[in-house]
């Protein structure tokens, strides 16, 4: 509810900003272009982008952060055109829908003189960006794998749930496989469940039917982990020592805070990275702090002791 009101306020304020542009010409404009909330992770991106816009607009009267969400790559291209037509953009923070379609439109914004910050998904031409902020998908898999190797004493049978065949999924799986290399952990089975709780529930039921003894489950995303946990609960099986996910969904981070025995850790691929990007961009515009370069956020182990840092109870994700 709150975030919708915030959104309405934001739309209103950006409309007012267009109207009052002539009077406040010295205000520096940071446009933020992100995908619309269509699943858990993107809903987190929208939440954190709006939170950052609100905080920066309140803290720095000389800056105007405008957030624009788009439901498709084509819509995002149009949104960029609209944003540049309505304002002189001093900076653009963009989480591109797809690298191919957005590269040329972002270059046009850059040629008009804006500072370009690219988040998460890179453009085809990396020379366009001034700043690149992303998470580390390989580390998501590797950190989880290292934890399992450590806790299972280097020995055990695992099942893995993959997401949708994409680079993100491949990198997480690769990191995981690298992480268990050299140990006696064995992946019994690995199938796609499309980052969907329902499909993960079914797949886990099937894994449980197929394998009488499983030491640990890794779902490479928290939406899937929810389905996995429900299937384990139904089966009343006690052989599964760990069921782990990844991404930093609030429900799972809450489990870590509460000291859950089966899900004691989490690895982040935080949607809040959009906030890092917006703040860094603002730091460059306001404080002349040098930020050009690449920032790769690590995927550190979230345990009970540091989980509070990653817990956002008001975020939809």
């Amino acid at each position: 509810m709150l975030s919708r009101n915030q959104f309405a306020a934001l739309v209103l304020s950006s409309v007012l900003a267009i109207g009052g542009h002539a009077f406040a010409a010295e205000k520096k404009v940071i446009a933020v272009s992100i995908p619309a909330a269509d699943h858990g992770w993107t809903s987190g991106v929208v939440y954190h982008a709006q939170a950052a816009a609100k905080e920066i607009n309140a803290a720095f009267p000389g800056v105007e952060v405008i957030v624009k969400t788009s439901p498709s790559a084509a819509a995002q291209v149009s949104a960029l055109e609209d944003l540049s037509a309505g304002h002189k953009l001093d900076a653009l923070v963009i989480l591109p829908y797809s690298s191919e379609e957005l590269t040329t439109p972002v270059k046009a914004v850059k040629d008009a003189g804006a500072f370009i910050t690219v988040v998460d998904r890179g453009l085809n031409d990396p020379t366009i960006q001034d700043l690149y902020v992303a998470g580390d998908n390989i580390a998501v898999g590797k950190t989880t794998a290292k934890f399992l190797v450590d806790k299972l004493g280097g020995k055990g049978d695992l099942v893995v749930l993959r997401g949708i065949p994409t680079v993100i999924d491949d990198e997480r799986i690769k990191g995981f496989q690298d992480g268990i290399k050299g140990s006696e952990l064995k992946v019994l089975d690995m199938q796609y469940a499309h980052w969907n709780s329902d499909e993960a529930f079914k797949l886990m039921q099937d894994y449980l039917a197929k394998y009488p003894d499983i030491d640990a489950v890794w779902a490479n995303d928290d939406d899937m982990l929810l389905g996995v946990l429900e299937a384990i609960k139904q089966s009343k099986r006690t052989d599964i020592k760990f069921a782990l996910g990844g991404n930093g969904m609030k429900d799972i981070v809450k489990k870590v805070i509460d000291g859950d025995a089966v899900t004691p850790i989490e690895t982040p691929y935080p949607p809040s990275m959009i906030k890092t990007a917006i703040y860094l961009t603002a730091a460059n515009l306001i404080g002349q702090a040098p930020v050009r370069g690449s920032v790769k956020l690590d995927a550190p182990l979230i345990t009970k002791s540091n989980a509070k840092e990653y817990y956002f109870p008001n975020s939809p994700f």
Partner: protein
Amino acid sequence: MTIMTDLAPARRFREFNLTWSDVGPFLALAALLIVGFFINPEFLSATNLANVITRSAFIAIIAVGATFVISSGGLDLSVGSMAAFITGVTIMFMNRLAPGAQGWAIPAGMAMALLAGLLCGLANGLIVTVGRIEPFIATLGTMGIFRALITYLSDGGTIPIDRSLRDLYRPVYFGTVAGIPIPILISIVVTVAAAFLLYKTKYGRECAAVGASEDVARYSGISVVRTRTVAYVIQGVCVAIAAICYVPRLGAATPTTGLLWELQVITAVVIGGTALRGGKGHIWGTVAGAVILELIANLMVLSDFVSEYLVAAVQGAIIIIAMLVQRFSK
């Protein structure tokens, strides 16, 4: 297809002289069970079969409703989004009531789900019949609308059920009566009621007549508008019943709930022997079709033959082979 050839199988059914399209899906189901047993004996274990049939319940219940729509010559692409929307609305309604009404919030939520389903179905029906818009386009439109509404209601995240209701509601999916999971019992009740409606009542025959030939039906004094609209309302109510069983499974609605269910539903209806162009509906075949789809997916995981990258291709091939076997053994 004329009205004469269409009514002939209906008469035969009453005399228990079953046609191939009546038994075909069940033979395919039996064949699948036998093949499955040889691939992995675990396939026929009571737990596995109970799991698979229970989770096919959503698609089966929705597909029973779709049999009416398709039999009457319509199509409904919105069922998956509608299921997600009804799930979301139901959970929000129950959560709102939970502090005051406690356990009573659950039956109230179920009533709310049925009402929502009825209204969603009615909207689809009226757009198609009174608005005279092609069912494909009309329901493609409402599919987008329902999907956007659930995304909006959830802010793109999840709508979880209140903790105090979670354990109370859980048995509706996970519970059993006399050893049979409750969703299976609900599907059986829905199917028996639907079979009665389609085969033993005037409405059922009107449905098939409208689907076989709209003009002939109209000249025979059947109201095409009323018959088709009622079919969409039945579909809406079936989606609501499926949503009622679905809520306790994961206890949440998300923008990805029910994604692509419409395709599974239509596939189940067609595997079940009902022609996509309308005419006689096969309720029991539809249910067999839904179970077959879920069994194939289950078998893909239990077998080790297929690379995870090729699962969808093998599933597609099995469905086509099953249809070809039915076609050529007539």
